């Protein structure tokens, strides 16, 4: 592990102390959220689903850092536990489409032919739908729940990765170093995964950060509509919806889950900008 780090950091341009500032801050924010989510039961004062009907709609202060909701649940505790669901949606909703899309884009861009033409049509067709509407319609058909939401995100999201990787591969496959390894007689799958893929990944990684922001917002949107995680489990979007009828007397129920989503989103956005600068990719 430490050897790997030394090798990484000794490469010119990627010195650890030269990491862009926004990347460092972004990583700190995201890591803090991951830790909060993992350690949720130990850093929160209450049970996220415990009702306390003597303490409903209490403002932030004595009754808790972020107050209590309409059935007396502690808002701070629920915001932290909700991170487990929202971060999971963000992670799975990006990694699955990324894996499918990168694989499809690699083969399509490198080998071309009829499969490539077909893939590009599928990409065009999927991108013709508004992202949120198609995800919404698929979840409406499959039924509510986080699992179905992630399936819908994978079905819709992979095309962007496929298009991105394909465009990169089309350029790389004609590069001199690829011609060189081809002349040396290496297996074409070896060339594809060992030489083409690593060079095609930079824009994918940068895009994945922006995509995760979109995915988390879409996930929270579906939670808000009631198609995401089912009650009483806490999720930022669903919590905002819970607070909507009480917005007049208890603004804190909706405010804090939104701030949580914003802070995590800012972290992702900073990482995206920092990576774009470090990897010299236009974002």
């Amino acid at each position, binding site marked *: 592990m430490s050897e790997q780090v030394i090798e990484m950091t000794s490469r010119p341009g990627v010195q650890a102390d030269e990491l862009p500032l926004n990347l460092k801050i972004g990583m700190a924010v995201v890591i803090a959220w991951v830790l909060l989510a993992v350690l949720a039961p130990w850093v929160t004062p209450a049970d996220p689903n415990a009702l306390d009907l003597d303490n409903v709609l209490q403002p932030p202060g004595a009754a808790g850092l972020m107050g209590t909701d309409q059935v007396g649940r502690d808002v701070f505790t629920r915001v932290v536990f909700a991170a487990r669901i929202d971060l999971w949606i963000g992670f799975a909703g990006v990694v699955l489409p990324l894996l499918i899309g990168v694989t499809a884009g690699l083969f399509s861009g490198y080998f071309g032919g009829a499969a490539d033409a077909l893939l590009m049509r599928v990409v065009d067709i999927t991108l013709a739908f508004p992202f949120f509407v198609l995800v919404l319609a698929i979840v409406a058909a*499959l039924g509510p729940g986080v699992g179905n939401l992630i399936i819908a995100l994978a079905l819709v999201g992979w095309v962007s990765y496929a298009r991105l990787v394909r465009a990169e591969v089309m350029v790389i496959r004609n590069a001199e170093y690829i011609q060189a390894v081809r002349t040396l007689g290496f297996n074409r799958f070896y060339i594809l995964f060992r030489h083409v893929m690593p060079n095609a990944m930079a824009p994918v990684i940068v895009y994945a950060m922006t995509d995760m922001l979109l995915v988390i917002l879409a996930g929270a949107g579906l939670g808000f509509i009631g198609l995401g995680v089912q009650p009483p489990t806490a999720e930022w979007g669903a919590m905002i919806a819970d607070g909507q009828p009480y917005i007049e007397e208890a603004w804190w129920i909706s405010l804090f889950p939104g701030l949580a989503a914003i802070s995590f989103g800012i972290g992702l956005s900073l990482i995206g900008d920092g990576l774009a600068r470090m990897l010299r990719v236009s974002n």
Partner: protein
Amino acid sequence: MTRAYWLLQRLTQLLPVLLGISVICFALLQMIPGDPARIILGSRASPEAVAAMRDRLGLDQPALQQYLTYMSKVIRGDFGESISYKVPVSKLILEHAPVTGFLAVYVIALAVPIALILGMLAARYRGTWVDHLIRMLSVLGMTMPVFWLAILMLRLFSIDLGWFPVSGYGQGFLGHLHHLFLPAVSISIWMIPVLVRNLRASIVQQSVADYVLAGRAKGLTERHIFTHHILKNASLPTLNLFGVLVAYLIGGTVIVELVYALPGLGLLMFNAILGRDYPIIQGLTLFYALATVVITLVTDILSGLIDPRVKA
């Protein structure tokens, strides 16, 4: 190559996309786990009622046959019939579309001028505090859940200050403008940053082009170079981006209509999902996709008209 030929080519490229859209919308009904008729009617429905519903939805026919029936109906403008409202889906869509259309145009009218100004400011003063401030506000705007912002603005401007109505569409053009102001602002705050970012990037990219140097050598003022040359060249990528953004704009309207109880397509979609009215969900998804395709086509044609290089 003539302009008419270019247009014709662009239109024929659309055919496979339209076909694919219809396949996906058709497949939505096939994705429902279990028997859609049973899910629509609920577990207490009689076997006869379920059989009648299966017959009505054509579920007993082979999938290909079902698709061809669906396709031939859609071509004739028949999007099926709503189960709960018992009227054609196309009629419901036409009834609800004006609200969403008004909202979308409103968002564009608000967002584009502001984005132009902010994008130009950020590019002109890049590296200064103006640029940094605009960038920070952009990040904030992009990360805010649009429905969260909508609820908070509702509380502040409608309930506390009483400036705007809490919900509804209003009467007459001015009434619509008044009622839809907060919904339009909610979506704009999300959309402006994306436009600003791209406009700034393309202005910065254009400002190092050779023609800028040539203009300076010719003794043109910086102001003239910026307004007559850089801005014109930078507007094209932004126009293209706009086509892409429309898809996101439509997605944004769905959820904002829900918060402000606007009787648009988004609310129709939401109620259909609650009532498991699959023909409406299917018809609306198709309509949303067709609308996006048409708008993208129009922006394509517009940029073709503006930029003589596109049709070459």
